[in-house]
């Protein structure tokens, strides 16, 4: 069945696929996860702060992001970023924003909505007695969050946050719609150039599968360890 296929094309393009493509994908995933968790925590704190207006704004943002397909959000930011850049820098014309920056901002903003929901659940899972005890000791709201609630919430939520990061890793493949050179984009370029769609897409599928599987296996082990300690 595979007689007419040329799997050597994979070997020939390994360097490009991994050193360029996968490096792009992993960098984008890592930075987006970091930014998304920080921004997501802020949103979660806004929603739980007790200030109605702040909570409403954060809630609207989360609902909006979660109602839209990621592909549409990618397009939105891709076309919006030059104008935002112009506004920020005070330039006279929309400035060109690199593809990577645009993608990074998109994923941080988009994933923050999902991370914030995880964080919110995590914070709410901490029993009410904990912040009460912290307050009784004279800690301020910020100190209570920083030293008592968030460390526990992060610990509880770590497996879910990591699972969401695996989803993010897979989602970054969608930058394909902007013809960016992530792992899938790189595979696709080779596929088109050499007319080797079957070989390249099968290989890409296997690589994504192996990485995601390994990562989720790791998360499961971590989860088991956390639940034993607790």
């Amino acid at each position: 069945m595979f007689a007419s296929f040329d799997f050597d094309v994979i070997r020939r393009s390994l360097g490009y696929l991994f050193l360029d493509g996968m490096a792009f994908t992993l960098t984008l995933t890592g930075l987006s996860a970091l930014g998304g968790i920080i921004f997501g925590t802020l949103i979660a704190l806004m929603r739980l702060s007790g200030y109605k207006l702040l909570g409403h704004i954060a809630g609207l943002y989360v609902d909006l992001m979660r109602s839209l397909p990621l592909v549409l959000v990618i397009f939105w930011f891709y076309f919006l970023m030059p104008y935002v850049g112009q506004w920020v820098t005070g330039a006279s014309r929309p400035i060109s924003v690199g593809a990577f920056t645009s993608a990074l901002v998109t994923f941080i903003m988009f994933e923050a909505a999902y991370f914030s929901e995880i964080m919110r659940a995590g914070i709410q899972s901490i029993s009410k007695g904990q912040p009460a005890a912290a307050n009784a000791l004279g800690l301020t709201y910020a100190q209570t969050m920083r030293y008592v609630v968030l460390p526990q919430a992060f610990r509880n939520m770590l497996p879910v946050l990591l699972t969401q990061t695996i989803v993010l890793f897979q989602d970054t493949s969608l930058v394909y719609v902007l013809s960016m050179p992530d792992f899938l984009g790189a595979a696709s370029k080779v596929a088109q150039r050499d007319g080797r769609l079957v070989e390249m897409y099968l290989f890409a599928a296997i690589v994504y599968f192996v990485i995601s599987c390994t990562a989720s296996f790791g998360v499961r082990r971590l989860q088991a360890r956390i639940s034993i300690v607790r």
Partner: protein
Amino acid sequence: MNYNWNWSIFFEPAPGGTGTYFNMLLSGLWLTIQTGVFAWIIALVFGSIIGVLRTLPSKTAYWVGFAYVEFFRNMPLLVQLFLWFFVLPELVPRSWGLWLKQLPNAPFYTAAIGVGLFMSARVAVQLAAGIASLPRGQKQAATALGLTTVQSYRYVLLPIAFRIILPPLTSEFLNTIKNTAVAITIGLIELTGQARSMQEFSFQVFEAFTAATVMYLLINIIVVTGMRFLERSLAIPGYITGK
């Protein structure tokens, strides 16, 4: 922001002679709904079967369910669509491959099936968790009354489990609809696709995306409202499912 807003663009005729830009977006919306519903049916059917398999005492059944879920969960949806669209026709016998490639509406069927199977893994996980959350005594009570395994699932376990997982199923349904936008990469001109082509033809990028955004929000509101109604009509008096 020096961008020339032109909201009347929606009422200008779109190239292609099929009506205004607004008509164009509406046809995209309709395709999004069709693809989403078709995919959701597939997700529910396959997800239910696999979800049940994961809760049976048989080791084999569990492993089949496990492998299925891991397969569909660990590859990006985009890659899965490429596999169905570009790779599958080359791997089946030549005549089938030709038939597949010449299929009219191939992007539609590929999207519906591809998104449907992708989502079925998530439905399966939800359902298995729902069944596992039922007290063990429920299965035992059904068994003790003489119900067979099939009957216990059909009359006792599934009706309760589906009620419990109705809220997460609502978000999975919405995810299914949103995920059909990924099919833009295999040439399905659904809502996001139409917004994108409107942007290319008219250069009114933000009007196009704003309209698509509003339409997605409307879909969300309608689905959430509908599911709330369903939840309420299926609610069991006195029984709290949130425990």
